[in-house]
């Protein structure tokens, strides 16, 4: 059996000799490096006659010690000599990490970079919106170039497959609005106003807004990831060389699908949310469904439906453009795809909410209140 690494100091007249012995492989080194570091007196020779095994890490330890003391290595086996001379070749210090920047400078730098990035993204997005308009003009002039198959496929993925999750979400939201509203309104004895709350809120705001958030999470992210991956695998470049415009083949079907599907999904979501509200009213407030529907028709003006349905396609356009734009920005590595997908969803939801605020002001100004 092999002995663990060991050392003995032997002070002599012509300088100290350090005897190394045992197994100098990494698993058996133990605290030999520390012991060697602790030797302060000058060492003239290192005797390795008793060493029975050595690897590069052991060789490096010996080389470093020998270099520090300018000591001579004696008695080393052929293997050990070769290893030590091998590890000692072009021995230069190397940085392990990049030099750290001071915190203040780094924070300022990051703020600056983020600001520039945000500016660039907005300008880029505007440019991409322009490109989409140009592509749609081309498609209007040459309707045969529209890829119907792709559009129909996107309609299914964006719309039909989302029905279940959007339905469930809207139903629950309807229940929550009705429940929370009824608790507050009960204090004034106006429980029946819960119907106004549910009806108007879902058609005007929540139905479309929540659908937009869900579609951004489901389809906006998928658009970014799909186009990003295609960019990585050079599929999009290949398309260009064949003469197929990626704007027409990839972006337009997605934009069209989102614009068509958002109002439909938004309407569906509003109806399901109202069913949810009606369900709660029937169960918790003893308002029978017939009364619920009757009152709904009295208090919800048709303009509320228009408000929702005008907003929905705009939201769809924003979601599709953000997704496709971020997907097309992917460069170089797979990590980008993840980052860009996140950016697509965040950007889409942010823009949807900003625009929703503008729409609210606009419709009030128009008189649809």
């Amino acid at each position, binding site marked *: 059996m092999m002995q663990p690494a060991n050392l003995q100091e032997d002070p002599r007249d012509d300088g100290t000799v350090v005897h190394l012995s045992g197994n100098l492989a990494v698993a058996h080194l133990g605290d030999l490096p520390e012991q060697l570091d602790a030797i302060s007196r000058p060492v003239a020779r290192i005797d390795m006659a008793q060493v029975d095994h050595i690897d590069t890490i052991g060789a490096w*330890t010996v080389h470093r010690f020998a270099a520090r003391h300018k000591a001579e290595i004696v008695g080393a086996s052929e293997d050990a000599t070769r290893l030590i001379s091998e590890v000692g070749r072009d021995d230069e210090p190397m940085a392990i990490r990049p030099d750290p920047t001071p915190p203040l400078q780094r924070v300022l730098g990051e703020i600056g970079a983020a600001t520039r990035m945000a500016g660039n993204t907005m300008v880029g997005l505007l440019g991409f919106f322009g490109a989409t308009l140009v592509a749609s003009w081309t498609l209007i002039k040459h309707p045969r170039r529209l890829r119907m198959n792709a559009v129909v496929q996107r309609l299914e993925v964006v719309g039909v497959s989302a029905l279940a999750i959007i339905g469930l979400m809207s139903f629950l939201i309807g229940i929550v609005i009705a429940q929370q509203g009824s608790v507050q309104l009960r204090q004034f004895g106006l429980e029946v106003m819960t119907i106004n709350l549910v009806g108007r809120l879902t058609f005007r705001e929540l139905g479309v807004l929540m659908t937009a958030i869900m579609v951004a999470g489901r389809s906006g992210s998928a658009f970014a990831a799909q186009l990003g991956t295609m960019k990585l695998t050079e599929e999009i470049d290949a398309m260009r060389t064949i003469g197929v415009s990626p704007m027409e083949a990839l972006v337009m079907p997605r934009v069209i699908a989102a614009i068509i599907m958002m109002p439909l999904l938004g309407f569906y979501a509003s109806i399901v949310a109202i069913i949810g509200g009606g369900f709660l009213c029937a169960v918790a407030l003893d308002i029978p469904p017939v009364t619920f529907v009757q009152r709904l028709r009295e208090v919800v003006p048709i303009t509320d439906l228009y408000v929702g349905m005008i907003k929905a396609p705009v939201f769809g356009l924003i979601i599709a453009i953000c997704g496709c734009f971020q997907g097309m920005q992917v460069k170089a590595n797979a990590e980008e795809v993840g980052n860009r997908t996140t950016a697509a969803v965040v950007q889409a939801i942010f823009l949807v909410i900003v625009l929703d605020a503008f729409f609210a002001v606009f419709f009030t100004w128009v008189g649809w209140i």
Partner: protein
Amino acid sequence: MTPEEEAALEAEQRLEEAVQSSDIAISVRGLRNSFGEQTVHEDLDLDVRKGEILGVVGGSGTGKSVLMRSIIGLQTPDAGEVNVFGESMIGRLDDDEALAIRKRWGVLFQGGALFSTLTVAENVEVPLREYYPNIGAKLRDEIAAYKIRMTGLPNDAGPKYPSELSGGMKKRAGLARALALDPDLLFLDEPTAGLDPIGAAAFDEQTRQLQQTLGLTVFLITHDLDTLFSICDRVAVLADKKVIAVGTIEELLATDHPWIQEYFNGPRGRAAVSAQQKPKRELASGAQAERQ
């Protein structure tokens, strides 16, 4: 010393003896791998001798990488035995008792598989940090620096992140990490794929040199005929879900399996053979010139 530590030391010593005494580093018997309907390996046998560079070749989809993954335990086969230095490795990748074996191999994946959030030097330090936490930070940094230089990377590569490296540099950095613990066994998955011919030749030379200096056993998957001819001691050919032949290239050329003949006697194979013979011929003509 706690009983666990004692057991670990004992396992290491047993392994040490196995490594010293046995001639076979890896033995695979009756291996069967399948994905759904598709069977990749069926009753596959292979021995890798200690201290050799074994090249593994085969058409695309013949399961070269799957074979490697089965040996290192990333893929649990449907049936069969995989022994590394006499220890069964099947399903033991996360097993603490197999730790001693894992310390003795290094793996270079196809794309390098460097950890993207760490610098090259920190990547090389990961196995050291993981298995030998007793090594001081300064010594660890020095060892990482040495390993990086050893694989032929420039000195300024250490503090760079993998995303800043070219494909060839990533492979070298991956090799540095695979070599961090002075393994006895080195697995290389297509190390020269995607490198330019000069870089590929340098990488081959490096592998050969390291193998000789450190006494490595190398399991090398490759499509590169030049690599096969220049550095492999033996070549294993995967086809028909089995290893159909193992031997030196001369031995393989003597077999009459159609795929092997096609592989080595195709235009690329012949080019690689003549490239290998050229230096010898030049030597011979040089000797003649001297005589005249």
